[in-house]
């Protein structure tokens, strides 16, 4: 028995234990449903051999083409890899620019802070009527944009418009724009309210409070997240190579098909290098502008 004077636990230990147990049970059920067992991991015929040869080349990536037949005029392997890398980066940059615009624009409408009322005056007529509708619509819209993966968007756009560069850019930019909008709006809504209220008290309007009281405070986090999404965009752009775009994914796929595993590793290392490099560079930028 707890002493009667002490407040009731808002979340009793029993409840917490029950939630943990339920999560465990759910996980176990998922395993059982999928009939997962390590006994199934019997290699295909020659499978282990392929895996061995593939990972064996990790330490000796190819420096020149390993294909049996190299057509006239084919650029050297490293040149081809770097060219594909350049295309990968360009696609990622184009998609990211578009999704940043989408994310900032939709992120504004998807936040509650821009139509939050005054502590004394309450909400304006617009804040009571149109704003909640716009907010709700935007939340649904960005939810839809995010719920379809970029690969599925790519399938859709390729079916509709064919293998045009714009299809690839849209395929990445739409789900990324939705994700950025969601995260940006939440970062702004969760920014500390102290400065915002202080500006209100000095006569600033709701929109001014949004842009000068909340956004500056959220900006470092928004920037960090945008950098992370660019890294994701590089990977997505690479994957679109499997659909035939001239990104590094296509080089990887062709090398893999030809069982030229050394070449696969070459392309993988090139991609890895650019991601590590980008990570370092964005860290430097953030240190300069944000930290």
């Amino acid at each position, binding site marked *: 028995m707890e002493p009667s004077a002490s407040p009731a636990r808002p979340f009793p230990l029993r409840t917490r234990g029950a939630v943990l147990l339920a999560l465990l049970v759910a996980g176990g059920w998922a395993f059982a449903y999928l009939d997962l067992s390590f006994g199934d991991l019997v290699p295909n015929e020659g499978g282990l051999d392929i895996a061995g040869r593939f990972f064996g080349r990790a330490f000796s990536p190819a420096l020149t083409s390993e294909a049996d037949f190299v057509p006239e005029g084919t650029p050297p392997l490293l040149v081809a890899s770097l060219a594909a890398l350049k295309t990968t980066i360009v696609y990622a940059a184009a998609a990211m620019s578009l999704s940043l615009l989408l994310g900032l624009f939709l992120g504004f409408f998807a936040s509650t802070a821009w139509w939050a009322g*005054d*502590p*004394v*005056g309450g909400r*304006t007529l617009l804040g009571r009527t149109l704003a909640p509708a716009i907010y709700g619509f935007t939340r649904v819209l960005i939810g839809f944009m995010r719920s379809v993966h970029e690969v599925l968007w790519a399938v859709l756009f390729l079916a509709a418009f064919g293998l045009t560069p714009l299809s690839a850019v849209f395929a990445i930019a739409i789900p990324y724009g939705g994700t950025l909008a969601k995260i940006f709006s939440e970062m702004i809504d969760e920014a*500390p309210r*102290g*400065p915002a*209220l*202080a*500006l*209100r*008290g*000095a*006569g*600033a*309007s709701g*929109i*001014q409070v949004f*842009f*000068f*009281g909340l956004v*500056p*405070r959220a*900006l*470092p986090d928004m920037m960090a997240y945008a950098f992370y999404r660019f890294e994701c965009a590089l990977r997505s752009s690479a994957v679109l190579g499997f659909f035939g775009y001239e990104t590094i994914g296509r080089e990887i796929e062709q090398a893999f098909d030809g069982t030229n595993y050394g070449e696969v590793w070459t392309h993988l290392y090139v991609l890895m290098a650019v991601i590590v490099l980008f990570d370092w560079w964005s860290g430097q930028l953030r240190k300069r502008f*944000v930290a």
Partner: protein
Amino acid sequence: MIMPGTASGFRLEGVTVRFGELAALQDIDLAIAPGDAVALVGPSGAGKSTLLRLLNGMVRPSAGSVHVNGDVLAELSRAGLKRVRASIGFVHQDLSLIPNLRVIQNVLAGRLGRQGLLVSARSMLFPRRADAARAYEILERVGIPEKLYERTDSLSGGQQQRVALARALFQQPVALLADEPVSSVDPARARDTVELLTRVSREEGLTLVMSIHNLELARACFPRLVGLRQGRIVFDRSREEVGDDEFHALYDLEAAEMLADGA
């Protein structure tokens, strides 16, 4: 130079403020003449912050009326309320500056209430030479002109409080309100900061109302002291008339009651 404005007077008539069940202030009558300097003293939860927020139109009274410079706040339109707020500088306890912006941007933010969105965006992103010069002058007055382009969070607590004061002065206010402005400043700097606030207000002819924990400091710097306890005014006297008995009434009784409750 800062333009000396017409000092603002305040009057509360029978004001009660309730937050749900809790009565933060009860039946308050208080008049503060233009140019006066008043210290609000009393324990935590006495209603000092609520009273200050009434004066700049950030809290709505549940009953009674708040007069600021002749206007009754409840009768003002949205624009009118905005105008009154823009005319009153407020120095907060803490957390009121944007830490990752430059000092100049925090100071310029003081004028948002007098500007439209586009004008304010332009001046916040690309401060005009004239604005920068004025911000520099005001920072000079509060003693930290060299910090104009520093990041705000690189400053000490006391320096940040000076930035907050500079922002309030950049508003060209007619009155200055300060809510425990030295509670997060080390004691050695607290006196400097309070003296700075009172001196600047006097020089500019601003009405000054400040809530303050430190009774010594209140007596030393303010001619008039208003004591609050549990949402009511316990005394409202000149500093010569406030003796130790009055302070005991504010704090010790409270302590005695708490002891009684706990037993």
